[in-house]
Structure formats: C-alpha cells, structure tokens
C-alpha cells in the first residue's frame, strides 16, 4: 500500500533577489513499512524535500499525499528527527519524549507509560530525569528518536540525524535503527549525504541530482539485515551510488567556482 506520494514537487528560494530552484519536479512513492534513504550532494534540495513532507515548508507547486490525503501543514503523523536533535533544553529527557503526547492531550499516566517504553527501547531509562546538556551527542540523538517514535507517527522523517556523531556511536546507532525499524514496522524516510549510511539503512536509495534538483535514480538494496558497516558485500551498492553522484559533485564544484 502506498503510504506517501510526492507529486511533482517544485520549490524556489529567493537568494539575494535571484530565484534559485531548490526542487524541480520531484516524484516519489513510499510504500508502507518502507525504509527510503535520500542521498545527494549538499544543496541538492534533499532536506528541503523532507521539510516539505513534514509540512514545515510549502512547495510552490505539487502535492504531498499521506494515505491518499493531501497535506500541507506540520503534524504529529510525520515526526522528524533533526540533525542537531532539537531537544528542548528546558525539559528533562522524559518530558522531551512526552512533549508531543502532551500536545496531543494524552493524560499524564498514559504519557508516562509510553515514554518509559521508548526510553527503554533506546536504553535511556537511567537518564529519564537528566537535562539534555548532561547527555552526549549520541544520547541526544537517541532521545530525539525516542521522542519521534513516542508519537507513533505514520512516517518517521530523519534529516541527517547521525551527521554530528563520532563514527563508533554512529555505527552503533546504524544497527540499532535497523532493529527498531524491524520491530516497529515504521515507514522511514532518511536523508543523508553519507553514501555508506544510505546503503546500510535503505531498502531503496533515492539519488538526488543538482541543478535542476530532482531524482536521478532509485536503487533497490536487496540484502539481509542487520547490515554492518564493514560488510564487503555492500561495496557494490556503494560504488553504484558513488558512480551516480560523481558527475553531480563535479558539476556542482564547477558551478560554485564560476
């Protein structure tokens, strides 16, 4: 069943009075329970696309359909994990995880139950009463994932959530995220500039191209899970995507030097 459909999404930005094309007709279908990774050179509009799906930005034209219904505003059915976590420093970890549930008017006892469950899942139980500054970057991202999952969204949106992590922590979370995905059966759209990350996580890797920004290719990754960073068999997928992106990056550097 199609969970999410992006139809011909176009978005322009105003840059010093010039109109810059951020997205030039993006079409994407995401099936229920799918794990989609979007990769592309920086500035290719992949994060803009995710923001549009989240309803945080509006497209100039085109449409996003969730379960067949058009959406244009942010909503707890599409929760986002941001690159820098975006946790609230004035709240304890547990209150961060419960924030969306509180906004949804869920009573306190029920909120506690739900948040405990996701804190357990992310191995954060001990830190429930900590403030966010007391956590490492990796733990903050765990809290952000727990917070997004606690809302039980239709789709989980992840915008380069591991970009700021050290490599050991990231490798660990790459495995954890696969296990969580298998356990929760969530539909996930994961944006990254890291190709190996996309190969490890995605059922399908969507390669964005630059100028005009649209989807260049979709590559299915049909391989057993959990996939590990050091698995040699992933190399062929990796090289396939590198090939796709190589020309893009060269074109972009030329562009920027002009």
């Amino acid at each position, binding site marked *: 069943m199609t969970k999410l459909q992006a139809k011909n999404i176009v978005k322009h930005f105003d840059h010093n009075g010039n109109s810059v094309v951020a997205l030039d007709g993006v079409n994407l279908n995401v099936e229920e329970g799918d794990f989609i990774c979007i990769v592309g050179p920086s500035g290719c509009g992949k994060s803009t696309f995710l923001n549009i799906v*989240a*309803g*945080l930005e509006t497209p100039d034209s085109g449409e996003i359909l969730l379960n067949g219904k058009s959406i244009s505003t*942010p*909503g*707890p059915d*599409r*929760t*986002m994990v*941001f690159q*820098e976590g*975006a*946790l*609230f*420093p*004035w*709240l304890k970890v547990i209150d961060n995880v419960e*924030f*969306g549930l*509180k*906004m*949804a008017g869920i009573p306190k006892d029920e909120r506690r139950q739900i948040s405990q469950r996701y804190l357990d899942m992310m191995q954060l139980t001990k830190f429930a009463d900590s*403030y*966010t*500054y*007391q956590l490492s970057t990796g733990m903050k991202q765990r809290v952000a994932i727990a*917070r997004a999952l606690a*809302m039980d969204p239709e789709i989980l949106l992840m915008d380069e959530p591991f970009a700021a992590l050290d490599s050991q922590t990231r490798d660990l979370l790459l495995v954890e995220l696969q296990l969580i995905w298998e356990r929760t059966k969530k539909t996930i759209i994961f944006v990254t500039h890291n190709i190996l990350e996309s190969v490890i996580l995605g059922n399908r890797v969507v390669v964005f191209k630059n100028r005009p920004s649209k989807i260049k290719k979709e590559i299915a990754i049909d391989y057993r899970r959990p996939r590990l960073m050091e698995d040699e068999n992933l190399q062929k997928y990796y090289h396939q995507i590198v090939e796709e992106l190589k020309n893009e990056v060269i074109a972009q550097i030329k562009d920027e030097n002009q």
Partner: protein
Amino acid sequence: MSEKITSEKKSQNLHDIANAALFLAVFVGIWQIVFMLGIWPTISMPSPAMVASSFAKIISNLSLPEGIVVTLGRLVAAFAVSIALGTLIGLAMIRFKGFGKTLNSFSAGLLSFPSIAWVPFSILLIGFNDFGIMFVVIMSSIFSVMISTYSSIRNIPPIYMDAAKNMGAKGFALFRYVTLPAATPSLIIGLRQAWSFAWHAVIGAEILMSVVGLGHILSVGRDFLDMGEVIASMITIFAIGLVVDRFLLYKLDDRIRRKWGLERHH
C-alpha cells in the same frame, strides 16, 4: 561526590565573603586616612565614624526606614506596570511585524534615553507626587522590557519552533510550552537591565520631585550641608541595589542557566 561539590562551593563562598570583607576594610581604612589628612573640611569629608552616627540618626528618627519603604513601594509598583505593559507591547511587536520592526528601529534611542530627562515632562504632566515619580520610573524601564521581550522571542533558534510544530504544538500551547521557556534566559537578562534602569530612575526622580524617599534624603542632606546623611543614604542605595540583584535576579538567572547547562560560561 555531590557532598564534595557542596563543601567546595561552601569554601568558595567563604573565600568570596572574606575577599569582600577585606576590600571593604581597605576602603574604609583609606577613607579614614584621607579624612585624617584633612584635605577637605569635615563638612565636605566626614569620617567613617561620623557617617555611622548619621546612619544611627536617620534610622532612629525613622526617616531612613520610611524612605526605604516609600522608595521601594514606588519602585515595585512602577516596575510591575513596566513589566505588564512592556511585555504586552513586546508581544504585539512580534504579532504585528511592521509595528515591531518600526518600533525596534527606535530602540537604541529609547534605551539610551536618560531617565532624568523625563522629570520635567512628568512634573508638568502629572505633578510633584507619587504618580509623577512612578511615571518617570515606568518610562525609564518599559522600553527595556519591551525590546527584550521582542528580541528574546525573535532570537529563539527556529529549530525549536520547527520541532514543536512538528510534534503538533500550535496556538497558545506553542507559546506557553515552547516560546516562553525558550525565551526565558534572555528575558531574565532584559529584566535585570530594566530593574537597574528603574532603580536609577526612582532615585533620580526622588531627588528632584519628592518629599519622602531615599532620593529625598539625599537632597535634604545637600540642602542642610549634611554630608554624613548624604553618604549614609548613598550606602543604603548601594546596598539595596546589590541585595536585589544578587539575591533575587541573579539567583533566578543562575538557576535557569544551570538547568539549561549554560553555567560553564562563567
């Protein structure tokens, strides 16, 4: 481990108090020496002991306690009005962008406007009474509250708002649970500044407009050539300013900084 931190903190506090006491002792000592050198006549430069006896006098004839009560009463009432109105205008500046931008472009002039310059205006508009003084205090502190409300909210990192909206927060809940707490550390800095403007203003206005109050004691001291009384009043003003900031506003600020994990900047 937390015990160790507490005892470390205690000894740090003791150390700070000892330093402050030493500083005061040196200050009073130098004062005494200058007095004994006899450069100025006693009427212009009384000794520490003479000021102490002036203190005793204005305390026992109740003019100092009464002055403190009256001054703080005016200040607190006027400051409350400043906070209420200033916050409302600040929020209106956020809500109506053009209005906010326009008013904000005057902020440098409004913030640096000397409080004393409101006194003649207030005398002619309202008169020599409590409300005249309160008007000066309000005008001197309200812009600080207003501009700090506006800029504190505008400077909230957009990612907090995005995250909150993404989790379904909107309308008043968004304001109450995200905008307000996110702006709080910066709002408190604005509040401390507004408080210091209000404190300047109330003393200045009382010197020129009042028949009771701490500022009035200063001007009586001047009129009767009573330097002891002037200095005693100045010391009181200094002490109140210190106590309010140190034990109220700073504490509040410090608590929030700790909670947010910002205290390591000190």
